């Protein structure tokens, strides 16, 4: 019983640590972005860390993950290499895509983070295809597609849900609902009567919603979906409410430009997924201010080392980029 308890505490600690690590990485990117050395768009996930961490905690290394433009957290939480990500954002050799991709094209096959690409909705069917392979080859693996609320407006989302249901595939659709598609609000994009949960249920797929800022809730919802999928129970859709703190793309806050209010932002900042969990862990005597300082300094050092690595790497050779069109037989 003691072991169970310590495992549980360690698990909770790890959930917190991973969120703090992602937050530290993203904040540091925001700080350094003005140096103009990261010469590609960056879509930061500050405020949304609990989803990446809670989902990944329910996955095994063999499980496939696909994502979109806001993928740093998903990549890191699955175990993606931080140095390779930073080198990629800096456009350097040693980047996870050797500079061909940038922030929006992350990949780490060693942990089955299969790829992120920035066309909204576009990796959803690709994740379904990996689930097809998992089923045919009896890999006992599931496939996860991360996407935002805007993606549920695409045709390919509904096509993919229908296909996954028809073939009973082990795929988990994770919808990070942060209210905005770039600067466009729900009111501009969807009928007030639209209910995505019912829409997905209408396709015959298990459909759930939860608090995307509550890392344990995210974990529990995902774990039951993963278990169901592994046992042949088919796909699940999970909508998780959350909020993006910074601008859609870039390092700044943008509450002043007119599409959302400072009051709304402050309301969500008060629901910070890290702070909320930290409070719980403090009450359980797992977390303390001293431990926070220790962890934060550890992650900051790790991140600074990754940035240092990225900056010191050479730029990729033009020759490689121009020959990487086709795979040789």
């Amino acid at each position, binding site marked *: 019983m003691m072991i169970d308890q310590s495992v549980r505490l360690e698990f909770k600690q790890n959930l917190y640590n991973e969120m703090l690590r992602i937050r530290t990485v993203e904040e540091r990117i925001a700080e350094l972005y003005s140096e103009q050395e990261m010469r590609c768009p960056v879509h930061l996930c500050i405020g949304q860390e609990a989803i990446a961490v809670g989902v990944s905690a329910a996955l095994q290394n063999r499980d496939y993950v696909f994502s979109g433009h806001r993928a740093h957290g998903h990549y890191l939480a699955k175990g993606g290499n931080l140095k390779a990500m930073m080198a990629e954002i800096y456009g350097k050799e040693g980047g*996870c895509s050797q500079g061909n991709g940038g922030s929006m*094209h992350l990949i780490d*096959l060693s942990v089955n983070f299969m790829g992120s690409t920035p066309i909204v909705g576009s990796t959803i*069917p690709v994740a379904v295809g990996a689930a097809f392979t998992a089923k045919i080859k009896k890999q006992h693996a599931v496939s996860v597609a991360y996407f935002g609320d805007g993606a549920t407006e695409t*045709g390919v989302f509904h096509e993919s849900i229908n296909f996954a249901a028809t073939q009973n595939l082990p795929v988990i659709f994770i919808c990070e609902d942060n209210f905005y598609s770039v600067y466009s609000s729900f009111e501009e994009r969807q009928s007030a009567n639209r209910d995505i949960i019912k829409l997905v249920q209408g396709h015959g797929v298990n459909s759930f919603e939860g608090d995307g800022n509550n890392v344990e809730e995210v974990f529990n919802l995902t774990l039951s979906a993963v278990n169901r999928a592994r046992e042949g129970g088919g796909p699940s859709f999970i909508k998780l409410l959350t909020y993006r703190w910074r601008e859609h793309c870039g390092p700044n806050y943008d509450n002043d430009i007119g599409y959302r209010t400072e009051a709304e932002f402050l309301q969500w900042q008060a629901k910070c997924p890290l702070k909320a969990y930290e409070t719980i862990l403090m009450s359980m005597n797992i977390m303390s201010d001293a431990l926070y300082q220790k962890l934060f300094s550890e992650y900051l050092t790790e991140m600074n080392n990754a940035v240092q690595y990225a900056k010191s790497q050479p730029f990729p050779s033009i020759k490689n980029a121009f020959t990487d069109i086709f795979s040789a037989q």
Partner: protein
Amino acid sequence: MIRTLTYAEALNEAQVQCLEADENVYVIGLGAPDPKGIFGTTIGLREKFGSDRVFDMPISENAVTGMAIGSAITGMRPVLSHQRIDFAIAAMEQIVNQAAKWYFMFAGQSSVPIVIRMIIGRGWGQGPQHSQSLQAMFAHVPGLKVVMPATAHDAKGLLIASIEDNNPVIFIEHRWLYGLNSLVPQEKYSEPLGRCKVIREGTDITIVSLSYMTIESLRAADMLEDSGVSTEIVDIRTVSPLDWDTIFESVSKTGRLLVADTGTMSFGVSGEIIAKCVENLYGKLKSSPNRISLPDLPSPTSSSLAKTYFPRAVDIAELALSSFGRNLDKKWWKLEEGVRLDIPNTNFTGPF
């Protein structure tokens, strides 16, 4: 053993042999397991290989293409078929953004071994949305291979090579070729992608053609021979990557070039080939190059309109002779009087 097969039978046999040889190969397409089996090309596959490896799909071209891509990067080798190229446009997003770029954008760490079969055609009232010939759209996108066999022999060998290739291949078949026979070896063999084939040797003019226009070009070459012009025909076979060496060699030899394409003219395959030849062989050209293709208009439906819309052997021969300052003997045009020009042959009675 070598025997005669139709183009459709050759495609069917290629898929059978690939399904037998590699358990990762699977066949998916709207109607793939249905009684007509995509013009006969997939008939019998489900019976032989089961519904896990040969299956139908929802009318969700984009998602199914994405699904095929996702399966390909995780170890499968999908063969996805569209009964019309026009339907495949609904999957342009996945084809162009994902399939074509996956290998490049992740620096060669994973590739997309997928074959997407698309069917083009002409005549029998197929009209604006059932008979487009969009190879140039696909060939314009770096990262896609575009294959267009003209004979049953090449259909089999190139489809096998496409399925075995590690990259996304757009495999374009012309419906008017399905019933045509050629000698096809029974064993599994592949024809190399990215290689043209000189299918008729000649000395006076080079016709570079693809798919069904290669058949029309062969007929045109007979007419030209009758006029004393020796024609070399280079069958493109793979539009992208294109085998420039073979084309340059032939055009250098003959000094004259005519390109016969199944697509519309502007910004297409014929323009690309002529541009490259002029850039590289300017001093060797004895006359300005010519091209035969569709007018820059959607395909009309009425059989009377189709007659003038789709070019034929006589048009090719007439244009070829113009580069010698000559005209085609009127007897060739007279042969067409009373002949139905909206069907591949008199055995064809529709409905599609």
